């Protein structure tokens, strides 16, 4: 009899569930009893995280400055200072 290893089980399970989330359709997102406001708020929250990283990357030169989004962020930051 093999010993129960919760770490291995969890790793397998999280991997499988992550695949389910990736494979979820737009209908699954909208049809999961999620209020529109929750979807909007969550999307805004994630976009703020993304903006933060893209802004940092544009400043450090990791993102091509000719990229419209990076250029926009750089311009916006320059205006703020």
């Amino acid at each position, binding site marked *: 009899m093999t010993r129960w290893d919760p770490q291995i089980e969890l790793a397998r399970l999280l991997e499988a569930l992550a695949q389910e989330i990736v494979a979820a359709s737009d209908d699954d997102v909208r049809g999961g009893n*999620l209020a529109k406001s929750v979807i909007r708020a969550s999307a805004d929250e*994630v976009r703020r*995280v993304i903006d933060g990283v893209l802004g940092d*990357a544009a400043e450090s030169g990791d*993102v091509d400055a000719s990229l419209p989004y990076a250029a926009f962020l750089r311009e916006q930051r320059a205006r703020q200072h």
Partner: protein
Amino acid sequence: MERFTERGIGSIVTVESTTADVARAIHALTAADLVRLKALARLWTRGLPEVLGWSDVLHEAIARALDGSRKWPSGVPILAFLSSVMRSICDDQWRRARREGRLLARDDDFEAGEGEARATAPDPERALAAAQALAAVNGLFCGDPGALKVIAGLADGLTPAEICRLYGMSERDYDTTRRRMRRALLRRGLEWSEP
């Protein structure tokens, strides 16, 4: 992934415009994609030992993708790629916590050999956190016996066909259950409290 070639001196070099591609792909994510991304970040950060939230892990994953320390493999969807980067960040976090725990333990070890025994022993803290995280995932589907069967099968590493055979589920039942699970994961992924 976009590739372009540059003619160097006497050779053709294939260049991957990884950073620009990643930035463009992330910028192009729809609201539904962003919801999926948050649910993924929440999923991977379940039970992390340190005070590291889903947004920290997501931030780090995007930063690693943009600075090129993690390459976006051709043909892999951007969400799947970012999910794998987040998983690796969370694994690193566990390893770091374990290493620090060992260093602390070594300081406390007076008897020779005790430190080595600890180093090869299973990590009880991580095992406990894993057991708690498994219980939390099971709790997520506690009202859905079909989903619990699928979860048990996935945790055992079974294929969909094996899960259907083991639990006497039809292919249709399995697909319907998976759809319910996806919706519950998305719903609860946004509602789960910070780890």
